[in-house]
């Protein structure tokens, strides 16, 4: 039930979801065809300007990026250890720019808009007879909904360990995490059916 969406009226908020997704997809290709550091640095500056003017206080805006930024820095450091520095800088800039813009898109696009766009994009696939566009849209929306929930479940399970003075191990985290989220998933599936959201099935 959580989401990364933040309210606001910035340019990004006003842009249609489709435009944002198209730019994002284009960026995903363009950033990878160049290794020019100046171009990539400009891209980082531009995307940073976009992201940090969405209306979120700087601290909060930065806090959301921290985990992912950390992994990017780790990637770059490793790259630095084994590759020429130029390559490491390119990787760092590329990933940072992409992440900034993608974070901007997720922060300004509601799950509903995501679902609508993905559904529209998938519509042609229906002709294959294999899939329903509505289902693809719904599935993507559900993933966006589940990710923050999984992370907060993870926190809750860590707390349960702490409260009982137990050591945290991968299996003792993963097992309750899966069982609890599977239960949630079952309830959510029932709610979707009860509300008649997948009309072709119900």
């Amino acid at each position, binding site marked *: 039930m959580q989401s990364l969406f933040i*309210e606001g009226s910035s340019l990004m908020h006003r842009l249609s979801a489709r435009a944002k997704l198209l730019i994002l997809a284009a960026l995903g290709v363009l950033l990878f065809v160049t290794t020019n550091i100046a171009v990539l640095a400009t891209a980082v500056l531009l995307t940073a300007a976009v992201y940090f003017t969405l209306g979120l206080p700087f601290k909060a805006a930065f806090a959301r990026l921290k985990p992912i930024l950390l992994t990017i820095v780790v990637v770059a450091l490793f790259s630095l250890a084994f590759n020429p520095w130029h390559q490491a800088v390119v990787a760092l800039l590329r990933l940072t720019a992409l992440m900034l813009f993608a974070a901007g898109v997720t922060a300004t696009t509601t*799950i*509903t808009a995501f679902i609508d766009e993905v559904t529209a994009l998938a519509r042609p696939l229906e002709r294959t007879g294999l899939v329903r566009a509505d289902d693809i849209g719904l599935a993507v929306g559900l993933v966006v909904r589940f990710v923050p929930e999984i992370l907060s479940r993870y926190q809750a399970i860590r707390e349960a360990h702490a409260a009982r003075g137990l050591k945290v191990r991968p299996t003792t985290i993963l097992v309750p995490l899966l069982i609890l989220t599977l239960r949630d998933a079952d309830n959510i599936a029932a709610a979707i059916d*009860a*509300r*008649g*959201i997948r009309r072709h099935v119900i």
Partner: protein
Amino acid sequence: MNIRFESAEVRYGARVALLPLSLELTERRIGVIGLNGSGKTTFARLINGLTKPTGGRVIVNGRDTSEDKSVSTDVGFIFQSPQNQIILPIVRDDIAFGLKSRGFSKVEIDTRVDAVLRRFKAEHLADRRAHELSGGELQLAALCSVLATGPSILILDEPTNQLDLRNRGYVQGLVEDLTESAIVITHDLDLLSGYERVLVFHQGQLVADAAAAEAVRCYREIAA
């Protein structure tokens, strides 16, 4: 509303969740009580077709729930844990979500969302994130989402769970004011005071079907 159970039963493998049950429900308010695991939720899920009877039939407003999937449009369901029933994170989006799949136009959806929010004086919740709402607000949001699509029957499974005295009174008021028919499952016996018809389940069987006072007496005996 007209709900008819014709020897409807539910088994999960060897375990019987509901023994063959025949009855007719037409009252505007119906309460359902019973011990944990007595079959209350199973009974309710039969009514909107979420669970299909393994024997017998359930007929809702003339339609057999096993055959006619459109029953679920007539019957709204508020689940035991409402946080799992809100599918999209923003209240307004969640309300709109159910409407969209019914093929309403964008304008119509907006009108209906606004109407239901106004009806329950919940305009202030429209842009809130569901996971940040308090228990009472969450129930209210769930109610809006479910009623926006216009079911004529509403099932509430333990709507006052985890709520404090104030929110409990608040939800009770909401239910009283509903123009829809309502079936209320609860452990909170005060909620049912004044109900003309209350069903008591015990070990998968309907053991009493009476006005609130009488039904509660029967329930207390079972629980003792």
